[in-house]
């Protein structure tokens, strides 16, 4: 589902957004700090801010449907994963360490395009909740005529 090359890109410090929906098919979403691709390429762990909207966590508990959109600010290369949440837990210190490294990479990307990453210092990205997702589909989301095409 996710090969090594794609996994490297996804874990390189991207802008990550996490989408869910309720039973009335009304969407809700939040920012994510980081993503970790598991060795089998079929599961990922997404690190969501504990401060994120309760609707997001409520939706996950109710139906588990998730969309994870990841983009590199410097060139807008983007990928979206679809999947189902299996379970979640409070991120452990070593996981937060990993998540902070990716988040700092993202802030560096913002700096590179002239948006000072330091301006986001008031955001409540940490502590995080780790959400393990079984990936069901991977799509190209880079802007352009073939955005939305399946990558696997």
């Amino acid at each position, binding site marked *: 589902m996710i090969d090594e090359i794609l996994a490297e890109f996804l874990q390189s410090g991207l*802008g990550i*957004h*996490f*989408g*869910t*929906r309720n039973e*009335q*098919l*009304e*969407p*809700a*979403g*939040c*920012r994510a700090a980081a993503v970790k691709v598991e060795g089998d390429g079929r599961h990922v762990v997404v690190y969501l*801010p504990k*401060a*994120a*909207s309760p609707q997001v966590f409520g939706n996950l508990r109710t*139906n588990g*449907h*998730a*969309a*994870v*959109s990841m*983009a590199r*600010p*410097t*060139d*807008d*290369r*983007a990928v*979206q994963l*679809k999947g189902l949440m299996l379970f979640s837990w409070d991120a452990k210190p070593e996981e937060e360490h990993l998540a902070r490294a990716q988040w700092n990479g993202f802030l560096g990307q913002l700096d590179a*395009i*002239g*948006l*000072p990453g*330091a*301006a*986001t*210092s*008031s*955001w*409540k*990205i940490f502590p995080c909740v780790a959400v393990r997702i079984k990936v069901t589909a991977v*799509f190209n*989301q*880079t*802007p*352009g*005529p*073939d*955005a*939305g095409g399946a990558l696997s």
Partner: protein
Amino acid sequence: MSLGLERMASCFQGIIPAMFYTCSQDGTPNAAFLSHVDYVDATHVALSFQFFNKSRRNIAENPHAVVHLTDPDNAQGWALRLTYERSETSGPIFDRMFWRIEAIASYTGLKGIFKLLAADIYKVESVESVPEEDGQPDRQAPPLRAKPPDPVFTMKALQDLSMQINTADSLEHLLDSIVVGLKRHFNFSHSMIALAGEKPDTLVMIASRGYEQSGAGAEVHFGEGIIGLVAEAKKPIRISGLMRGMLHAYAAKRRAEEKGWCSDERRVPLPGLENPSSQLGVPLTVRGELIGVLCIESETPYRFHEEDKTSIELLGSYLAVAIQNMQLQDDEVEGSSGTVAGPPASATVESRVTRRELAYYRDEEVVMLDGEYLIRSLPARILWKLLQMRERDGRSEFTNRELRLDKSLNLPDFKDNLETRLLLLRRRLEEKGGGIRLVPKGRGRFALDVTGDLELVERD
């Protein structure tokens, strides 16, 4: 109860991309980046529909959506809960979005691919803060963009500019006083004016300020870049967050090239700043006729404000009338008719040892100086005529009137814009003409000043 959209203007500038959440009928959520969300009114926003992507398909099945915006001033995130209402393919909202996207597409060589198909209008049901994107109440950290400038199009500044350009006594002084006045009274360091060219659907750069090269004589075709688009639309075009928009478009271009959907041609060179963050193009029209385009650039994002639109249009109308009046005045009031004999203006200038070749290519109507392009079309014909008269009759001073009466120049009978063409020729010579100059000698009169030896060659 007010949603407060009116107070979120900075969120709608496209400086930070938005996130658009939708859900399909089968219950699969979708999260997609958006380059721009447009403010429509106190209860509506517009989203650009450029490609038939998953978000668009979801909206067709399920009208509920959420868009997250980030305020570039204080990093506060906002969640707008939306319901799709309609799509517009014409009208002021569509036009505003269309021309902004066209400008970005033009710069990136993506015209026809990166384009607006419709402006999708959504009703905003609620606005809530995004809890994890908490803003900076004390602004201790740097804002995500430079501090917003003070409103610039004040009546005082307009009045001051008006007073300054009223003192101009020639087209050249008028154009120069406009670009100088824009710096002095509005603090716009980078501006340029292109006037209608000889060829249809073409503008020619005639005055600029703040750039290494004046660009005098550069042609801009309708539809190319912000100047060409303003000319085509005859409407002001304002672009903020240009860098973000271009990154978005370049990403689309790369994908299109990989697919073989567009050529690998380089983008049309952006006139002016290499990386402008904001651009404003103002059409200069008189009674619906396009006289030219004023373009102002800034390295500051969100430099030009939507609420300035009325002042901008007023400024454009005023400048257009002033320029046209000066063009007509220059045509009517000229110096003494007939030829003016006298020694060559360059007689006192030390001659160069080097002999240069100036070639006129008759079929192309192009003048080349030592093998390098100098100028084309009517200014080229004028230059060639003047140099021939200088060589044949030993003349160095000329009048506009004799040029106007010279049938070989093929000037139009009405509105020949001769003064504009002479100004263009003079500026081009100042920049690329070496020792060849046109020197004003009072209204309707000028001297041709040539330093050194010049070999005139005519070719097909």
